């Protein structure tokens, strides 16, 4: 069971909340001009992060307000809780501390190269 600290009500059990999926997905400003692929990106595609994941929660059995949580999806450690509309930088320790996450930078280095190469082919 997660303990989540609502920005308004304080720390409560996970059962008081509902999950709202990945945070900071912005609705396109120009819906008329979007291609099908761009719509698919907005509606369906998700980062599904292994590591620190920014996500939305709503305190449905409490103040019923939405807010954001940065949570490590491997350890379930909650790194940061912040209000809707904000997007603070995460403390560096949070993204490098646990052994599982330590591997991430190596993977990311490869991942960063890959898209560039992919573009050549695509």
């Amino acid at each position, binding site marked *: 069971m997660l303990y989540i600290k609502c920005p308004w009500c304080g720390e409560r059990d996970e059962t008081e909340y*509902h999950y709202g999926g990945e945070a900071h997905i912005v609705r396109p400003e120009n819906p008329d001009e979007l291609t099908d692929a761009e719509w698919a990106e907005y509606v*369906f595609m998700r980062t599904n992060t*292994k590591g620190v994941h920014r996500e939305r929660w709503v305190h449905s059995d409490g103040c019923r307000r939405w807010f954001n949580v940065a949570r490590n*999806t491997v350890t379930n450690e909650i790194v940061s809780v912040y209000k809707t509309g904000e997007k603070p930088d995460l403390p560096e320790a949070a993204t490098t501390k646990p052994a599982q996450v330590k591997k991430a930078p190596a*993977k990311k280095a490869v*991942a960063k190269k890959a898209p560039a*190469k992919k573009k050549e082919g*695509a």
Partner: protein
Amino acid sequence: MSRFSIFSLARNAMSWHQNWPRQWRSPDPKPEYDVVIIGAGGHGLATAYYLAKEHGITNVAVIEKGWLGGGNTGRNTTIVRSNYLWDESGLFYENAMKLWENLSQELNYNVMFSQRGVMNLAHNLGDVRESIRRVNANNLNGIDAEWLNAEQVKEFCPIINISKDSRYPVMGATLQRRGGTARHDAVAWGYARGADDMGVDVIQNCEVQGLMIGNGTVKGVRTSLGDIKAKKVAMACAGHTSVVADMAGIRLPIESHPLQALVSEPMKPVIDCVVMSNAVHVYVSQSDKGELVMGAGIDAYVGYSQRGSLHVIEDQLASAMELFPLFSRTRMMRSWGGIVDTCPDASPIVGKTPVKNLYVNAGWGTGGFKATPGAGWCYAHTIAKDEPHDLNAPFSIDRFITGALVDEHGAAGVAH
């Protein structure tokens, strides 16, 4: 490979069963393969098996970061059925069911496939209508399905509570008699043994750390045991598909969630079928050891931790208690979690990717086990021909762009 038979059993009994050969090798990776499959679970191993068997491609490696069958293959509740609503899914899973029915003979390995019947309960008028619709759709596709009323449900599974005083009374159920359970580990072991015999290398403790890609074509994989070149690379890594796909810069509509299951202490046989309920949210069967095997829905949040929250288990046991009051004094022995890769339309993705010669088999969500032989069979065809089989063509990534979703949420998305 030493074949299992009554004669080999008798022969080995003479030497106190001390001289059985190993069932598969543990080779070091070669520098290059025709096909590298990422993930030695049921799907990956089945794919390797059918690549060798059906398409004659034997220069294949199946690489696995943990141990063989140690992911969702060894963590699911082993239910097999094919009574899906839509034609695309129905035909796909029915092909898998036909492979299941002959799998022990095919592999010369007892996968303990037991067609004990799977009931999906209906608890309200909406459920009843939807269930009867699904029975009719199944029958039109040549899939066996029956509608049972509450009394018939009680007759088929005598310990179930059909009292009208229940909060969610049982109003009937669909029944697929050909559905049932199988021994999940044996499926992975049987495919590994069969594939190994045809020359496939199954390499455990070998984690993929990157993909080698040039000119939009995959050239190989970087692993914890060094670089391995490959003409084709196929992902079969379930909950970690997004992580591997990210190495190729591919975005997927997949989210990984913990899914929990649990077993009770062993007890005498009380339930000889599989009972599933979407509405009260639990599914139950009894293993040959006598343990009740139960599962339910996913934890709501994205997670890679292979464990979930306790309240999800509490809910599912409350549901089980409502359906089976006699379970009230049963002690639960252990619970665990697996990481399932869910798709928005509760259907899988099996096919090509934007990167040439890189293939994806993912998004099985909570119901991948039942598809194991069929998924491997279709995926092997897709890899060998560089083109999907008719059965898996509807399950491409492109459907999220074209909008041709195979929306099984209503029919199957909750309890698989």
